[in-house]
């Protein structure tokens, strides 16, 4: 009870305070304190839920089970990293006169509002409110995407705002249909949008309305989760946003939208059965396939990483679509691993961007010599993201592939291997050129803030650690979440 209020109110107060106070150094400390406090509240709640029972409050309006707690944990880890990193990054931008003093305060205000909107998605029991919170994430993050106020960032922000809002409008249509099928069974009942309630009556819902609802919600939230062919906003938004925001967008926002899909999936799976999996499988494979040509011909570093996010959301969806214990386990592990690795990559890319003053990969050459720490971490993370052993994503991708062979989706696994083979070749080709090329003469290596390099080590722990072995507490958590996805949670 206390923790939940703390979790939701701390970011709001931190944001407002940092916006109100004019002393920049004090602001940074308050930002740091607020972020750490939020993380403590979040992880404490997650710990309670994982070791005990689901947590509900405010007349069942708030309901946190293992799936929500899992999403909260990812949010907290990525936001802690991004919060530490932001200090160095924003200081550098301010020093370079890229942003004004006013923007400095606005950045932290919106950053904290962004975090709380995503937490709102994870903690609510009500699918209608989940929609409201997801729409809020779009609004706040659109402001952050357009933060630099250049022509290109305005373009990205506009495209994101419009595509996100239209997508989510279709999701609302789906939710209305879901509500109708709910009150059809339960009668006039204001809790007919609570998924704990819907979950109990899932097998009695009208399958025809449920099919429509599921498709609309899948397309709507899928737009925000970056599914092809609704992904066009994603590379623009991720490449134009400030790097810590790109990390949060990729590491948390996509997962949060996907969390919305998972909640509906649990209900639809019981009402409709196998056809749900076909849809997920289709969207998953299409998202992986569509990124191949874009990654192979990419010039912009952050766009390449963004397309890779589309690919990995596709892989997660593919894992859920394949289903079975192994598929679900692999998909969930992949969700976690992708968040860690991709946030590390975006943050490292932010450092490179600030050192080389460019996002073009043909200008970022010889990074290992110019910025050894960032350069080496970037190469490690690229190895991880392309699925090389012994890193974390290899484990989860291998599990999903194996699940495909076991659950009679052999063709899906084979296509999957072919696609990631191409992506591996493309990404590694560009990275090797960046790592060992001849540094352009005009680049003067400037020392990066210690905040910007230290923060990279938090996700690195998981990138390396979970590659070597998945600890038993993690397996336990994933099994709890998998149980909920089967509809047997509680």
């Amino acid at each position, binding site marked *: 009870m206390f923790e939940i209020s703390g979790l939701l109110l701390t970011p709001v107060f931190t944001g407002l305070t940092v916006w109100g106070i004019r002393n920049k150094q004090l602001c940074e400390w308050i930002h740091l304190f607020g972020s750490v406090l939020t993380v403590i509240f979040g992880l404490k709640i997650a710990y309670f839920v994982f070791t005990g029972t689901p947590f509900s409050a405010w007349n069942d309006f708030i309901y946190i089970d293992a799936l929500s707690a899992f999403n909260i944990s990812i949010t907290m880890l990525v936001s802690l990293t991004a919060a530490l990193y932001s200090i160095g990054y924003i200081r550098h931008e301010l020093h370079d006169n890229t942003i004004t003093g006013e923007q400095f305060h606005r950045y932290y205000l919106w950053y904290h509002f962004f975090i709380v909107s995503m937490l709102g998605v994870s903690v609510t029991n009500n699918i209608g409110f989940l929609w409201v919170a997801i729409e809020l994430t779009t609004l706040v993050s659109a402001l952050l995407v357009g933060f630099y106020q250049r022509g290109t960032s305005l373009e990205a922000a506009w495209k994101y*705002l419009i595509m996100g809002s239209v997508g989510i409008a279709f999701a609302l249509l789906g939710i209305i249909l879901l509500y109708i099928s709910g009150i059809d069974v339960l009668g006039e009942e204001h809790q007919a949008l609570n998924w704990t309630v819907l979950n109990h009556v899932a097998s009695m819902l009208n399958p025809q309305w449920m099919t429509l609802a599921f498709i609309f919600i899948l397309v709507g939230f899928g737009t925000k989760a970056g599914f092809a062919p609704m992904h066009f906003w994603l590379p623009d938004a991720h490449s134009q946003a400030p790097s810590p925001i790109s990390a949060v967008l990729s590491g948390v926002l996509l997962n949060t939208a996907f969390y919305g899909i998972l909640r509906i999936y649990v209900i639809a799976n019981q009402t409709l059965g196998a056809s749900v999996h076909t849809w997920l499988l289709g969207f998953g494979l299409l998202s992986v396939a569509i990124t191949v040509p874009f990654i192979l011909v990419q010039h912009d570093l952050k766009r390449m990483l963004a397309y890779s996010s589309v690919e990995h959301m596709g892989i997660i969806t593919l894992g859920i679509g394949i289903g079975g214990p192994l598929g679900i386990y692999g998909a969930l592990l992949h969700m976690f691993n992708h968040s860690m690795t991709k946030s590390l990559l975006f943050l490292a890319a932010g450092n490179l961007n600030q050192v080389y003053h460019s996002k073009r990969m043909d200008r970022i050459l010889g990074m290992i010599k110019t910025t050894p720490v960032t350069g080496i971490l970037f190469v490690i993370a690229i190895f991880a993201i392309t699925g090389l052993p012994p890193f974390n994503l290899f484990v989860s991708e291998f599990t999903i592939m194996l699940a495909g062979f076991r659950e009679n989706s052999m063709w899906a696994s084979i296509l999957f291997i072919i696609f990631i083979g191409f992506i591996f070749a493309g990404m590694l080709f560009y990275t090797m050129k960046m790592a060992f090329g001849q540094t352009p003469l005009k680049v003067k290596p400037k020392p990066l803030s210690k905040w910007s390099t230290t923060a990279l080590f938090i996700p690195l722990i998981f990138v390396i650690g979970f590659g070597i072995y998945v600890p038993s507490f993690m397996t336990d958590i994933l099994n709890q979440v998998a149980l909920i996805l089967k509809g047997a949670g509680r």
Partner: protein
Amino acid sequence: MWIQSIATSLLVSTFLLFLTRRITTAVKILSLQSFILTISVGIVWQITGISHFLIAAILTLIIKAVIIPTILYVTIIKIDVKREVEGLINPYTSLIAAIMLSLFAFYLTIHLNLPHSDFGKPYLPVSLSMIFLGAFIMIVHKKALLQGIGLIVMENGLFLIAMSLGFGMPIFIEMGIFFDLLVTVVIIGMFSYRIHSTFESLNTENLQNLKG
């Protein structure tokens, strides 16, 4: 009878958006549409006596018929766009396409066999048309602000469909949706202003630098 004519006028107001030449007129039509929506919710409240429809009607009137058009209007005055609305295709072609789309919506509602409340039947095809046409407005118009108007038409359609399928969404969710819409419009206004000051035009054709 009442309901029939209100449903028709909602549809007509959406069609009018395709014929307007000026952005200011489009905003006025939008305000009119939201006002008709208020009346339709008010009538439902009269019939059913459920208080949450009264709250929904008041919110629609204040937010959708007054505040949102005002924000859009102020934005237009501030950036001083008096020029005509430009579509990708000419207004009559787009009107014909719009009529086809709403015929499709009527066809869908007949075949989908959706549930509806007693008063909701005439609204169903209209609300579906409004959702389709809102999306269509966003596609055919070049001006950034009109894309915002398309979004609000979609939102009006969604509000109407929720009301005609059942009893509307629970009121606190409805409030959340209103809040989101309001923030969206504020941000659309802000971005339109910035797009105009950066490119000296509101045309989204300028927003095509990011590719690949």
